[in-house]
């Protein structure tokens, strides 16, 4: 029998008996980051493609929620910091190797852009809106004129944001479950899927709804493929990763992951969307809600299970 004990009574809070340094804040923040990245990505994409009128839901309507979601996400991130008064230190340096630094700066850039985007589309919701202030009015005019340029910037930033939400975890070698390059694309796909689903809610036309249902379906397909790929990668890897994947294959996270994330969050909504594409009457919000729920759970479960997995030595 092998017996391995920490005999000094070590019980560092948040570390022992296993890591619990990140709670709900980080997964929520990552979810909102991914979701907003998805929305902004499609908004930018269809602006650049010149399809603003056809897909007004994506370009003009859905992004209205983005600034609010980003602020909630940032608030969650802030709440998670344990040395809050020093948070401004994030903006005293750019650390290219630190995903946290990337995220902080990307959010710093993308949040104002999302506000501008909201501002220049405000008439969509308040048709009688007039900018009273001369400066604001001028600014508005400037951005409206350069909207495509702005969209390009937004496209790039939203991609960075989307990938970052996945890379944040996968940068941690120390946690075998996170130590896979698939998390980046997976979280990106999940964020885009959540974004697409949200756009469905805001879509004006049936045409637009169908497009985003199709996009969503495709993204879900990619996600499922990535998940299978991820597990195959784990099983073929080191002992620690085999054990980490065990958390989902018979281990304590098996049920939450396969039921909440894969079944309810991917397979069922995909099925509903297929039905919808086949012109069956499905309440619009149902697959959307499921996709959003699945996307949220994915982050929660990966965050918690990842903290549970560790090197054995």
């Amino acid at each position: 029998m092998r017996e391995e004990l920490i005999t000094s009574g070590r019980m560092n809070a948040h570390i022992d008996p296993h890591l619990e340094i990140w709670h709900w804040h980080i997964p929520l923040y990552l979810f909102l980051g991914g979701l907003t990245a998805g929305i902004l990505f499609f908004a930018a994409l269809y602006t650049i493609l010149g399809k603003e009128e056809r897909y007004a839901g994506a370009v003009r309507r859905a992004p209205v929620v983005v600034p609010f979601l980003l602020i909630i996400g940032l608030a969650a991130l802030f709440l998670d910091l344990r040395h809050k008064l020093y948070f401004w230190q994030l903006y005293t340096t750019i650390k290219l190797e630190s995903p946290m630094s990337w995220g902080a700066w990307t959010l710093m850039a993308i949040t104002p852009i999302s506000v501008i985007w909201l501002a220049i589309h405000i008439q969509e919701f308040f048709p009688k809106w007039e900018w009273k202030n001369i400066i604001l009015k001028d600014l508005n005019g400037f951005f409206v004129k350069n909207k495509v340029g702005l969209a390009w910037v937004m496209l790039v930033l939203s991609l960075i944001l989307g990938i970052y939400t996945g890379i944040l975890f996968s940068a941690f070698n120390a946690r075998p479950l996170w130590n896979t390059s698939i998390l980046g694309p997976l979280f990106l796909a999940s964020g885009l899927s959540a974004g697409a689903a949200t756009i469905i809610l805001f879509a004006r036309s049936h045409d637009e709804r169908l497009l985003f249902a199709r996009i969503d379906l495709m993204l879900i397909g990619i996600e499922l493929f990535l998940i299978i790929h991820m597990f195959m990668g784990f099983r073929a890897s080191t002992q620690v990763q085999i054990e980490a994947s065990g958390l989902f294959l018979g281990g304590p996270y098996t049920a939450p992951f396969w039921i909440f994330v894969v079944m309810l969050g991917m397979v069922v909504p995909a099925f509903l969307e297929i039905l919808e594409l086949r012109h069956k009457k499905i309440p619009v919000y149902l697959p959307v809600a499921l996709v959003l729920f699945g996307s949220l759970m994915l982050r929660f479960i990966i965050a918690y299970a990842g903290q549970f997995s560790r090197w054995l030595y």
Partner: protein
Amino acid sequence: MAHKRRDFIKISSLSAAGLLFGAHQLRSARPDFNKTPFSNMRPVGSVRTSTYCEVCFWKCAGWVYKDQEGNIKKIVGNDDDTNCNGRLCPRGTGGVGMYYDQDRLKTPLIRVAGADGQQTFREASWDEALDVVAKGLAKIKQEHGAECTALLTHGSGGHYFGTLLKAFGSGNIAAPSYAQCRGPREVAFIATYGEGLNSPEPTDIRDTRCLVLIGSHLGENMHNGQVQEMSDAIDKGATIITVDPRFSTAASKSKFWLPIKPATDLALLLSWIHLIIENNWYDEEYVEKYTYGFEQLKQHVKSYTPEWAYGITTIKPDVIRETAREMANAAPSVIVHPGRHVTWYGDDTQRLRAVAILNALLGSWGRRGGFFVPEKAEVPDYPHPPFPKPARTWRDAMDGKFRLADLALANGVCEATIPSVRMDCHIKGWIVNGTNLIMTLPDKQKTLEAIKSLDLLVVVDTMPMEITGYADVVLPECTYLERWDDLRIVQGRVPNVALRMPATDPLYDTKPAYWIAKKLAGKMGLGDYFAWENFEDSLDWQLKQIGSSLDEMKRIGVKNLPREYGPLYFQDGEDKEFYTNTGKIELYSTAFAEEGFDPLPVYTPHQEPPAGYYRLNYGRAPMHTFSRTANNPNLTDLMDENVVWVNPKVAKEWGLTAGQEVYLQNQDGVVSDFPIKVRITERIRFDSVYMVHGFGHNHKQLSRAHGRGASDSQLITRVLVDPIMGGTGMRGNFVTFRFEKESEVES
């Protein structure tokens, strides 16, 4: 409890769900009562004062460091001190916790309700409390005689209260460090060499080539100098032979581990002696020159072959041979370690006699790498009048038993307290200083019976321990970090003295023992025995007698003096006179023969655990000292409860899982007050369980110790008394597991 580190695979899905939904908040973080400010104060180079440690009785000298505000920050060993060589053990380092423990006794207390173990007291002034004590003692003197009082003590305060009691007219002064600890060893070595080992033991471990540990679990037993020297010996490639039924830390460092069946050590020792004599491996010249009774010994051990011992000890004959040869090859640089807590099975003096004999045959006594000749500084006592001769002592209650005991028996004092027809006067008043008798003495019922028949119980302590619960008056002493005390004068390779001075003023309304004793003496008309004005003056006076001064000692902390009585080891061919009847090292003990005991050790079998029971084995954890550290914030942070070690086979039989809480019940039906967690480990035999002594406190006032783990003492109700010197053998108890505690079984 030490936790399994790699436990993630085992968590249940329930806790996974808990994790998801924030159950982490429920997990209690430890209290941050020591929360530090955002500061960079570093104790290096700050103010320091000299002390010597009182967390155990090795008495390492050290320095107390304080920050700019005068707060005690850390304690570090004194480099010049030969007891510690600048390195304290974890308990000494964690000694700061004694001072900061907010559960400390804070003011004198006087009992308001019956002496029932509950701490029902009212606070009192020192004057009032000491009046009660002085009056109580005077009353006992008047009604029964001064000799009907006793002092039970462990620690530096014992000297002052001892002086007080002797001045008062009583000679009943006992410490649990004798009959519950090293008594049998002292008697065995006095019988053999004419002198005991005392403390610190003069074992020359650093230079030894072969160290034999019989039970001594150095590394868990953190007696500092020995642990340090064992490490030196490992570095120098010495052979370590550990005889222990449990895979102790020392066993894991040993070349030979002899996993002996408990209670059979004497058979192994006799067989070693047999081999060493049969093979002429003994030191012929040494034996010839210095010893008495070799021929009798030779005859006596003829039949104790390794094959015979194998049947008893389960140690294979070739292992017994090989280890005997290792010892012989290393001789005389070999130490068959006499151990310290040796009150195991009631025949302990005889077992230790065998140890003493074995060392004599190997010629290790007085030899480099064996036992050195210790010296001790000679410092006169501060002058006081002579003591009156007590009319009677505890020995009179013993019916002539235990005459070979060279010190008083704590259990003997108990016995002399319990009324019986044999005696006309029983002890009526106790002063208990620095010993938690309830956890320290086996057979708690007997201790309680003694306490019940007292007219007065005064307890001097720093903590609200079990014993204070029974006191009529509790006198709170300040901790060793807040007081002056006697000079530390202990034996060693070089004679030396060390100074303890207060690092800070006492917290709360606590006082040093010398102050308490002097005040009491004043009230009892015995002030002459404490003639000094200030305690420091008495120290200065003493120090001046040896060519030092208080000022010098404050600066250096420890003063090493030159040896006065010759070299550290016997010289070649040197004539030696030993303080025995024959003037020789007595392999055959004439003193034992006179008293009617076996002059040569004889093996007798001991009782074995009945089916379903396991021998209760206990010992030390490196970061705790008995019960005195059980509430220490720094040390409980390292270990906050004891666990019961169970062999995997036994665990399987009982369906026990790691970390499960069980109650232990002993052969007399006593069930532990508290449950104890199971540690499943291969390190313990299938016929025993093991636990660290000093846990399972049942006083709520001890906020960190209360209910943590279980008390071995409580389960030691069968006491195997050593017929030779009255030591209380404690390892003849057997326990079994219970999953629920039935309230009707009372302990």
